[in-house]
């Protein structure tokens, strides 16, 4: 077991060397990050690099197994699955990202206000957050999406709304720990407004844990969005999205495995990369985990 104290070592190094060291100590972070960047690039440039138009029907070429022309085979309407996987990534990534963003958008202000002002305001806000936490994961997004109607925009909102309490809590904890710091008291004594204190002193302190949580949640939101599409509450045809592709193939996948396998694998690899990256980020930034590979 390592008994190094990495903080002292790291302080003495140059910036480049510091990053290299971080990379060497956190191979998962790098691996995850690289794959993630690759996926983002592939899906962003999908219109240029995909071999076929993913919406092009070809009724004479339906349900073909993977072959030289169609690397991932074709689906029930003869569309090229490889092209669909490339194009579908965009929606999955965007929805996942936006869901986290929305959760942060709602949760951070609530946590800031609750932690900063304390007392009744805190109690009320936390009780309300608790109500949202009372739902088992996925149940609330399912219900909200059904209420708002299917569609990826509503999926983003639903997941974001269900997820905000985590960010509220993290920010609140961070703000509370900072509130008692001397420099905050000093700033208030000098007449700096509440808002400024919150934004300039409390908020930055919370940024690291929020980022770490966000990167870890990103994988979950992608999975949640895909699951919702699988049930039929997320993306709808003719949209191309990985979860929807698996759902559409459900009646046939036992005989035509490729219609479900490739989109499913795409989800898996993306979430894997995101999780590795998130884990790596936490390992790198969280003091308890430094020093362990």
């Amino acid at each position: 077991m390592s008994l190094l104290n990495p903080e002292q070592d790291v302080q003495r190094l140059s910036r480049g060397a510091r990053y290299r060291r971080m990379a060497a100590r956190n191979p998962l972070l790098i691996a995850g990050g690289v794959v993630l960047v690759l996926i983002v690039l592939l899906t962003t440039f999908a219109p240029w690099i995909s071999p076929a138009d993913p919406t092009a029907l070809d009724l004479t070429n339906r349900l073909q197994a993977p072959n030289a022309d169609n690397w991932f085979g074709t689906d029930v309407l003869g569309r090229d699955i490889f092209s669909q996987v490339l194009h579908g990534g965009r929606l999955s990534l965007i929805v996942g990202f936006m869901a986290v963003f929305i959760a942060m958008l709602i949760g951070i202000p609530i946590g800031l206000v609750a932690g900063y002002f304390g007392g009744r305001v805190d109690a009320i806000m936390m009780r309300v957050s608790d109500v949202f936490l009372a739902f088992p994961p996925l149940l609330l997004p399912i219900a909200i999406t059904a209420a708002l109607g299917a569609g990826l925009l509503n999926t983003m909102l639903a997941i974001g709304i269900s997820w905000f309490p985590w960010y509220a809590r993290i920010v609140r904890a961070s703000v509370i720990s900072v509130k008692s710091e001397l420099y905050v008291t000093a700033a208030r004594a000098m007449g700096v407004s509440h808002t400024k204190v919150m934004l300039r002193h409390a908020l930055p302190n919370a940024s690291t844990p929020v980022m770490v949580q966000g990167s870890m949640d990103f994988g979950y939101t992608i999975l949640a969005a895909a699951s919702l599409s699988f049930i039929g509450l997320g993306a709808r045809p003719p949209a191309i999205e990985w979860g929807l592709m698996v759902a559409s193939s459900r009646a046939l996948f036992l005989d035509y495995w490729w219609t479900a396998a490739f989109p499913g694998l795409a989800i898996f690899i993306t979430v894997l990369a995101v999780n590795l990256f998130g884990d790596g980020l936490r390992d790198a930034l969280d003091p308890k985990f430094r020093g362990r590979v």
Partner: protein
Amino acid sequence: MLRYALNRILLLLLTLLGVLVITFIISRVLPGSPVEMMLGSRPTPEQIEAARIALGLDQPIWVQFFAYLRDVLSGDFGTSLRTGQSVISDIGARFAATAELVTVGFALALAIGIPLGIHSAVKPNAISDHAARSVSVIGLALPVFFLGLLFQLVFHGQLGWLPLQGRIDGDVMLDTPFDPVTGFFLIDTLLAGNLTAFGSALAHLALPVLTLAAATTASVMRVTRNNMIEVMSQDHIKTVIAYGLPTEKVHYRYALRAALVPLLTVFGLIYGYMLGGSVIVEYVFDWPGIGGYAVNSVITNDFPAVTGVTLVLATAYLTVNLAVDLLYQVVDPRLRVS
């Protein structure tokens, strides 16, 4: 301690009220008039209007809410628009199925996840550690629905070893019936001495449980590992090792005990995660539980069922968390201060 418990119960009830409000709002916003769905193929305009009034949909929204509140408090969750049965009886009929699935899955996740997590923490960087951590990372990244489909494809489609869906063979249920004492088929069939039915129930349980437990095992493994690492790095453990006690013994006896207690706090979260995951698993495997009922109710805008199920699941989740919290208070005396 009693005061703390009462306090927490009060809080739970308050939270449940909040849950009720939210689910009521959601169910009333659900698009599509539920009346159409309820009346089947071709109702006349008169039948539609009559049903509207019977459901109370012509009242202002706050009147509907208080009527709903009153009904819920007296145990009436309304009638499902889809099945035509009372929501309570619908849920009751399906409760044991979900309970069995989640309990067995939970037990499996603990039985595999805890030892793996400990092993991983105690022998860091060994091949087994890396392997275990890889499995854990994979388990968390695999979409539950995809894993379920994969299992069906491999174990049923290709190998033909295990059944595709359902809880037990319909034939077996009829030819060799057993008393549903607990609702847990594994227990009931054994109690009845019915090995055929036990085998059938076990075979049907295998794939859904494996699918559900996969992600949870990964979670349990991570948390156990993290807790063990924390405890092992604490001074009192290092001291004992420095004094010469065998490292392994120290790890498995003292560190483990200390690490498992905080694990309790995460139990509630993990249980909730399983409840959420069970929704998808039940949908994929046609498991006759509450999760599948929830999904079908939501898809068909069955608002009494949606509110009823959400309420039941949220209550279960909150209760488990409360129980775990109280248990933790009992187990760890250091926290009995506040």
